[in-house]
């Protein structure tokens, strides 16, 4: 296979995979939650219809809003797509791995969040400000927690390049059993729950001002803008699940670009993220939403776990 051609093909494949699977994963979580509540629930492909419908609808823009309101959905979507190109999903190393490492990924997420939080303040709505304020406060703890959790794996692998971390860990399975990694995994799991706005930190299905965080920020969005933001957050969930599964259980991931390896890699990837998605749904169904000012304590646990993971790397692991 021609090299440049291969890079383009594999990158587009990865991009399409994340784009296409994101609504499905969100559908699976919704379905699982519904079953827990003894409801039949909507079909797992419902999110696709929702997105298509929203994309076709007109957008309502407040006269108070500025140009930031109009560019943010595209910016958030684009930055999430770039992240999807940098995180190993079915193959490692990803073709464009030299462009950015894990720090870049975390800061690209931060870039998206920065603009969404600004838009929360843009329309002059009280809800938007409330959402941005909460989102940024929550982010101020989970962002470092996430970094520390991933740095634990990075230090084991001797690089912050995600593809190299995954490749090194998949070649030495004993390293995965490192106790520091178990701590880091639990830290990153809490981070995933918080970053993707799930119970017990946030509730994606609520519009109650006492509890909502992410929904409050994007309350003024509608139509195509809303579709892009929603799709971006569904992709964010997939990326986080990919990080969780491939950083800590890099089983079955493809290491070459042969079609067979890619097929096996895709199958393994889907199995892993569907299992993780169901676990997320179980956590969501069996826990109550925390009071807002109890949330930092919960997130602090993630921070401390990740921090201890990094420290433990020296104390016992190594």
């Amino acid at each position: 296979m021609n090299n440049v051609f291969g890079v383009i093909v594999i990158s587009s494949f990865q991009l399409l995979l994340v784009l296409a699977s994101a609504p499905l994963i969100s559908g699976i979580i919704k379905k699982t939650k519904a079953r827990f509540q003894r409801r039949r629930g909507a079909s797992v492909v419902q999110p696709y219809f929702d997105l298509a419908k929203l994309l076709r609808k007109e957008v309502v823009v407040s006269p108070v809003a500025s140009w930031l309101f109009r560019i943010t959905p595209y910016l958030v979507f684009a930055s999430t797509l770039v992240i999807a190109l940098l995180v190993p999903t079915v193959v490692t190393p990803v073709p464009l791995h030299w462009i950015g490492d894990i720090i870049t990924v975390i800061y690209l997420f931060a870039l998206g969040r920065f603009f969404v939080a600004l838009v929360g303040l843009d329309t002059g709505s009280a809800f938007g400000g409330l959402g941005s304020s909460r989102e940024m406060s929550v982010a101020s703890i989970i962002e470092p927690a996430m970094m520390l959790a991933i740095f634990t794996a990075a230090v084991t692998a001797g690089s912050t390049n995600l593809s190299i971390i995954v490749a090194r860990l998949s070649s030495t399975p004993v390293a995965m059993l490192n106790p520091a990694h178990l701590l880091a995994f639990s830290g990153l799991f809490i981070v995933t729950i918080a970053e993707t706005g799930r119970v017990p930190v946030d509730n994606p299905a609520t519009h109650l001002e006492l509890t909502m965080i992410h929904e409050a920020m994007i309350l003024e969005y509608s139509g195509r803008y809303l579709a892009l933001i929603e799709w971006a957050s569904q992709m964010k969930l997939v990326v986080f699940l990919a990080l969780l599964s491939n950083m800590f259980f890099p089983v079955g991931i493809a290491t070459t670009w042969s079609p067979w390896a890619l097929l096996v890699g895709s199958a393994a990837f889907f199995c892993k993220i569907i299992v993780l998605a169901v676990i997320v749904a179980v956590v969501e169904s069996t826990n109550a939403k925390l009071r807002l000012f109890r949330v930092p304590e919960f997130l602090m646990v993630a921070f401390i776990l990740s921090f201890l993971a990094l420290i433990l790397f020296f104390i016992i692991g190594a």
Partner: protein
Amino acid sequence: MGIIHLSTIGLLIDIFAAAILVTAVLIVSSRSLVFYIRLFALQSFFLGAVALLVVLGYGETHILIAAFLTIAVKAIALPMVLTRVIERIQVRKEIEFSINITASLLLCAGMVILSDSVAQSILSSQRGEAPAVSRVLSVSIAMMLIGLFIMMTRKKALTQIIGLLTMENGVFLSGLSITYGMPLIVEVGIFFDIMIAVLILGVFVFRINKTFETISIDSLRNLRH
């Protein structure tokens, strides 16, 4: 013991030690008394597992009894007793903190760092090859510190018991890590000591609650008058 490789034993011990540390951190992070007791049971279970692994890996059979005692008493019996006490007194939450949870967690991280540096200096003064189990020394010191810290900062008598028990688990772990466990007679002695202490404290909790209608030990200061 050729059945399981020593490095595997070492790895498993590491994992359980990490798990023990996680339970200690979670105790600090929580405010539900029931959760404290469950976490403590889990912690004692892991501790028993570490002891069993030491038996397997280094053939120190005298620890076998201590390991079973740990699981039977600390992981099963004591939690049951304490759960009974909670059911009787109908108190479920620790709400009085002298330091809030966020700060406590940060301090815990600091204590882990401190105990690591202490453990490193102890181990480096030792001559010869250190066995795998000695690496958990830092965890054990951290446990003692965290236990003491829980007793210092929480006000409910029941939490105090949990703090005491966490400290005791730390002592047991450090015994394991330095000398593969203390002589059996000492271990058994400590066990009974702890059992009796918890029973007495349990009765106390019940009495304090009945007398003052609270289990906060702050009320005990009223006895001075």
